[in-house]
């Protein structure tokens, strides 16, 4: 699974490989948020494979997950 961070999150990184038990976006956010509480904030949105998601979504190994903080405009 590929995880990308943007804007003010871009200098961060996961603490290590995603554990096998993390199979959806809610679990991924919770796992990352243990060492990085900012990611738990509802203002941080998630896109999976270039699609913004609402609610939870099942993930598999080939997915690309992007964490998007509030946008600042151009």
């Amino acid at each position, binding site marked *: 699974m590929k995880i990308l961070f*943007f*804007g003010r999150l871009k200098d961060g990184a996961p603490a290590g490989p995603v554990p096998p038990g993390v199979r959806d976006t809610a679990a991924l956010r919770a796992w990352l948020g243990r060492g990085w509480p900012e990611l738990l904030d509802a203002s941080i949105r998630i896109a999976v494979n270039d699609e*913004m998601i609402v609610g939870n979504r099942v993930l598999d190994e080939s997915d690309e997950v992007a964490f998007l*903080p*509030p*946008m*600042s*405009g*151009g």
Partner: protein
Amino acid sequence: MIGVQAEPFDAAALLADFSARAAGAGAIASFTGLVRSENDGAAVSGLELDHHPRLTEQAIAGIGADAAARFALTDVAIVHRHGALAPGEAIVFVAAAAPHRRAAFDAVDYVMDRLKTEAPFWKREHRDGGAHWLEARDSDRADRHRWETKAG
């Protein structure tokens, strides 16, 4: 002419190209946004615009298509920079061609309001000896909201 690019662009050249392609339209309006040299009273030495390689382009294309439909444009152009920019450099170019002026003026205004609030860009400004990530201003959101209360 819709795109996101790291390279600087020449707004006058973009407008000339756009005007040539829009031959027959009754009105062309354009807007060029520049990197400010100061913000909140502090000198800005430059900024970085982070973007998502695909979501940003998709969002811009969607905004352009919405503007074209809403204002019955004959053509629309949106060119946006990403990466490192210096004060005075052009950051965004928008142009709209329509049969009459009001649609062209309004379309450019509408596109900018949506870009400022919905396009996936994250801006880091270099000032005060540090780098600061910015978020959309309340005034940007208020500007965006104007279009929700108008018919059409």
